[in-house]
Each structure stands twice: as C-alpha cells, then as structure tokens.
C-alpha cells in the first residue's frame, strides 16, 4: 500500500498542478465575472428592448443549471465540430480540450453563482441603495462601492460551495481527453487493480486543495464581517 502511494503520488500531483488546479482557478474566475454580469442583468429593472437580453440570460442560466455538466462538455468538445457553417467554420468548431473545458466550466459555474449573487444582492436593505443614490452615485458605483461589499459577506459560503464543487467537477474533463488528476488515479487503478486505495489517495489531494479554499472562505468571512459587532 505504501508503495502504491509512493509511486502514484508524483503522477497525481503533476496532473493536479498541470490541469486540475489551473482549470479550476481560471474557470472560477471567469465564472464569477459571468455570474456577476448575469445577476445584474437579471436584477435590472430596465424594460423595453432590454427585456430580450434579460430573457437570454435567464435562458442561459436555465440551460446550464438544468443539464448535466458532462453533457455540456461533450457538446462543446465533440458536438461543435459537427457545426459546419459555410464561410465561418467550414470544418466545424474544433476547440482545444483545455479551452473547451475552461469555457464549459466557466459557463456552468457562472450559471450557478449568478443565482447566489442575485440572492445576496436582493438581501441588502433597499435603504443602502437610496443612501448611495442620494450622495449622487450611479447604479454601478453604488453596486461596487456599497452593495457588493455587503452582499459578498452573505454569499461567501454558497460561492465557496460552488468553487469547491467545481474543483471536483474538473474530473469530468477526462471525458474530453484531458488527463487530469482523477483520470490519472483511474489509469493507475486500472493497472494495479486497487481502485479503493487509489480513490482514497486522490481524495486526499482534492481535500488538500479544498481545505485551502475553506480556509480562504473562513478568512474572507472574517474580513467581510469585521464591521458586524458581535453580540
């Protein structure tokens, strides 16, 4: 057993550093940006032509929340090559697996996080917007300087949930030919026929990364709550 761990670990760590962690970090960063934009558009009270954009973003959230991530990856990687548009993409759209992965993971986590952010913005007292407007702030300014700093406190744990889920969902990248950490563990298990041991080992490496994220969450919760007086 000790020997299995010793031989497997370098391969796992390498795959983790090369794919799992970078994909998770980049996809979450992009996903957060998408989520913020989506939440704001969905919360906007604008009407008229803007309604079409709102419907579009609502549709986006619905599609990416409602269908399995694996299917999304499949369609982006294996399905888009069939999308042969004359002139634009005569051979279909062939994405590099890592690009396809990051794209899909970002869109997926963005859909989930947009709901979290939307809820947290809604939970801030209306008076805060009004006070911000009153000192002449625009909507954007009020949002970034007054509302979000308060909303972030409430949305941290569910956002951390999404991030941590994403870290583990990167294992699905194997289905689009990316040899990430979990895939490596399965490949090794296929040789040594010790899947239980291999799974436990890879779980430890996921846990290490997720623990760092949990710490970060706790730290940010503390920072963003420093203005709350404990009773």
């Amino acid at each position: 057993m000790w020997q299995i761990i010793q031989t497997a670990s370098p391969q796992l760590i390498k795959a983790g550093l090369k794919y799992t962690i970078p994909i998770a970090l980049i996809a979450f960063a992009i996903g957060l940006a998408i989520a913020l934009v989506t939440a704001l558009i969905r919360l906007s009270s604008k009407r008229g032509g803007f309604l079409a954009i709102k419907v579009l973003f609502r549709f986006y959230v619905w599609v990416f929340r409602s269908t399995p991530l694996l299917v999304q990856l499949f369609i982006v990687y294996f399905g888009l090559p069939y999308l042969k548009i004359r002139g634009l993409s005569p051979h279909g759209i062939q994405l590099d697996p890592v690009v396809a992965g990051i794209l899909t993971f970002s869109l997926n986590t963005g859909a989930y996080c947009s709901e979290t952010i939307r809820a947290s913005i809604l939970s801030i007292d209306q008076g805060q917007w009004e006070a911000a407007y009153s000192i002449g702030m625009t909507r954007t300014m009020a949002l970034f300087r007054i509302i979000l700093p308060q909303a972030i406190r409430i949305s941290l744990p569910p956002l951390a949930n999404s991030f941590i889920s994403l870290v583990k969902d990167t294992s699905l990248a194997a289905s689009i030919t990316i040899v990430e950490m979990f895939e490596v563990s399965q490949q090794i298990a296929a040789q040594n026929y010790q899947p239980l041991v291999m799974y436990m080992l890879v779980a430890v490496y996921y846990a290490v990364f997720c623990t760092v994220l949990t710490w970060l969450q706790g730290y940010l919760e503390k920072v963003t709550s420093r203005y709350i007086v404990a009773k």
Partner: protein
Amino acid sequence: ACGAKQSSANNGGYQSELKQSKTLTIGLEGTYPPYSYRKNGKLTGFEVDLGKTVAKRLGLKAQFVPTKWDSLVAGLGSGKFDTVLNNITQTPERKKQYLFSTPYVYSKYVLITAKKNTSIQKLSDVKGKKLAEGTGTDNAIVAKKLGATISPSGEFATTLDLVREGRADATINAESALLTYKKSNDIQGLKYRVLTNQEQAPAKISALFNQKDQKLQAKFNQELKQLRQDGTLKKLSVKYFGSDITTE
C-alpha cells in the same frame, strides 16, 4: 464465507464462496458490444451468454450487475460480485490482486488511423503520438507500453471521431469492437490494420475472481474446458464475433 480451504482437484464446496446462495453474481459494464450490451433494454452479448451457460450448468441462477469499470474491480474486492466478465485481459500486475480463469477469448488488436495520416506506418511509429484509448482498458496499457501518450476517451464512437478529426493520431483497439461497429456504421475517413501476433500478442480475455474464491475459479475453469470441448464456446463466438476467436 467461512475461510476457503486449500483448492484441490476436489471441486466441491465452491457454493460457500458464493455471495448469494444458488446465484452466480456477475459484474459487467454492459456497454461493450459484442461482449456485453443492451438490446432493446435487455442485456445480451457473448459474455452474458457465457455467464448464463456456466451458471446453468452449475445449477445456479445468473445475476448480472452492470456498473462502471472501477466499480467492477472494487466490487469484486468487497464481495459484491462472485466474478467479473468484462473483456478483462490478463496482466502480471493484475494477477497479484485477483485470480483469472483460463482465457475464453483471444482478442486481436487493430490499429486505426485517419485515412490521410501518413506518419504512422508501422506499429512502432505510435511512439510519442497521441492515442485515444478508454481508461482502464488493456488497449490503453498496450498503447502506453509502445510509448504513446493517452487521450482518455470513453466511447468507441467518439474515439473514432477524435481520430477522424485528427484530434488524436490513432487508436489501438480490439478488432472485435471495430468489426461490430462496422456492421451498422461506416468508417469513412479511417483506415485500419489488424496487428499480427508477432507485433502484439492477442489479449487473453478471462473471468476475474477474488483471491480467496479459488474453488469457484477451479469450478469455472472446469466448466469452461467442457464448453470448449463440446463446441458451445465456438458456437457463441461465431454468433457474436462472426468467427471463432476462442483459441490462440
């Protein structure tokens, strides 16, 4: 199970090694025609028929439990199945952990490339190339041994897509898989070559048993031998593979 005695010519006593009395519980994926697959929702295939036949001869009921590849191995270890019939190739490393039956299929390999590919002429050319292979399959092990890098690809159909589109350079796969695929699908844009026994010895496909179930293994081997002798095995092979591939 109350500690298996040393295995011997005496084949009795294997019943005590069964997970469920009067039942032979068989793990398989059910996603690999023609070994095991669903036809109109019902499990069928060479290994399914083989399992049923052996069970019947032992006076047992065959119960098939479909699951994922890793779960087959883990499940055998923790006593969820009596045996696994899932196109499993014997390797020395695996033998350390589990028992194998005598082989019931000798599966030839085929090298598939895109028609326009010129960089892979002979088998050794795959060295350093990207080969699309299913995780856990012995195809992947062979490809790796030849020095290729592996692109994991679960489905045979998408594996061919990858090769056709040039996103993978080639794939080494079982000849039977390709032949089955070809029956109902065209392989436009692809070319293939069956590997000779000198290039790559055929995979020895065998049933898998838990280390402690030595009596069961012996009994299975005994039945297999008889099936081979009375031509049943050959009949099954012709039915599913179109030819007899049960001998070396």
